[in-house]
């Protein structure tokens, strides 16, 4: 059920990238897709259990898997930095193309 929701998030993000005309909306849709993928990693990490994998005195045994969680931190940071770079690019493009419609920008900038 949760898996279905996460995959629906990823698809919403992907369709947003295709269907939205504004460049900023496309970037936000990409961010939604990014969030969906990261949540999928966290879901896979919770296969074995839901307890935070921190060693303490009473050991429960149903620990979540720390490996995907650790690995997805890198993906989060990378997604964040790429978004920041893209938004700076959009700011510069907005000077000459204030409506930021991809079709217009493409027509102006493709030989």
């Amino acid at each position: 059920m949760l898996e279905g929701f996460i995959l629906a998030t990823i698809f919403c993000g992907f369709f947003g990238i295709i269907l939205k005309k504004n460049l900023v909306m496309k970037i936000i849709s990409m961010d939604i897709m990014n969030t969906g993928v990261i949540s999928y990693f966290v879901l896979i990490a919770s296969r074995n259990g839901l307890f935070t994998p921190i060693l303490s005195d009473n050991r429960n045994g149903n620990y979540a898997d720390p490996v995907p969680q650790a690995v997805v931190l890198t993906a989060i940071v990378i997604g964040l930095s790429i978004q920041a770079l893209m938004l700076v690019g959009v700011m510069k493009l907005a000077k000459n193309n204030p409506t930021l419609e991809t079709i217009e920008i493409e027509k102006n900038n493709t030989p």
Partner: protein
Amino acid sequence: MSTITILWIALPFLAGFIIYLFPKIDRYLALSVPLISLGYTLQLFTETSPITLQLLDNFGVILVADQLSGYFILTNALVTAAVICYCWNTNKSAFFYTQAIILHGSLNSAFLCADFMSLYVALEVIGIAAFLLIVYPRTDRSIWVGLRYLFVSNVALLFYLIGTVLVYKAHNSFSFAGLRDAPPEALALIFLGLLTKGGIFVSGLWLPLTHSESETPVSAMMSGIVVKAGVYPLVRCALMVPEVDPLVRVFGVGTALLGVFYAVFEKDTKRMLAFHTVSQLGFVLAAPVVGGFYALTHGLVKSALFLIAGVLPSRNFKELQHQPISTPIWIALVIASFSISGFPLLSGFGAKVLTSKNFLPWQTIAMNIAALGTAISFAKFIFLPRGNSENHVQRGFWVAVIMLIGGLFLANIVYYEAYTVENIIKPLVTIAIGWLVYLLIIKHITLKLPRTLERFEHLIGVMSLILVFLFWKGFAWLGI
């Protein structure tokens, strides 16, 4: 050797940041890094067995350094060194050299990865560094081209990430070998990411605009080595998990034909070279066992061609027919074009012969047509008028081009067994037929092929089509 490997991976990033802090020594420090890589890869070739580093247990980072990665790292070192020499006397800021060295370092790590997560990180850093190099001129057009590149790359790698976590779910580690146990969705998603990043087949149609609209040294670096970062994992997977080998070969053949078809009818020098890169990457994939050597020759020759095309007076072939180019430049252009057409005495010949020895029977006809198309498209460069004796190019250009073309001659020693009579006749016949076709047919017709598939929305939409195709074919065909 393991410690040296880890130090060598970390060195370019350190050097990159130091370059930005001390701009006075930027070019010298930037040139020393590829030379150190060159030293490392020559050491790597003398190792008899592959070096495998498993950092932090079986779910951690796995690095494999063997001959295949050695070829790619050698290409990386030579192309980066040539690009930095070319940029020596142009007034590039320290930021440019920082990005070039960070790109070099991330490419090195990509060519050593043997697990999906480290590859993801390496490919993303490559994307970011390449983006910053593409937008270096800060014009509107370069910002749009760079943004498009980064966007397509990031979306493809998001799909790749989903595939990676499915591999982890099935195999409990991120290693490439886990592809065998993974569900077919994982295979389709990972391949989609790698195909898009490597510029293969229809998903690679972001490549022509990106490579042709960047500055000359950036185009040389991107076509010479950056796209190989997407192709290397496909070759590595085909070698580690032989069940996916047929799929990789099919994509190789398709890409070679698609690229060459567009290249033959192209009227712009840089766009033709970019389409040609697409086609040659197909050759690398068509015979994964010997893909490394082909990647080396292609990297050297394509960066040389881009650097030369940057100093030609115009980008349009029709205009170039009326403006003679200086004779030394013409000689360099002809040598490079001969190498890529497969003329003997240059390593392109050895690479083509070695690759055709490793084709499966159904591939030979299609790849021969692709080779013919290559000869036709490079006849456009060979038959340009020459004779103008003024020579305005900077000295750095000649250092770079001589380094690359010299590398082409030297790389012959890798496969000198190619020089038998029957092997020599076939490329000569192919080149002769190609020139005939060019002079009689192609020179006179103007066919403008549609560019719809290169539009931004279509690039993203094609990803979903390729995903469906991979899932359907990958599942039905291979039964994985």
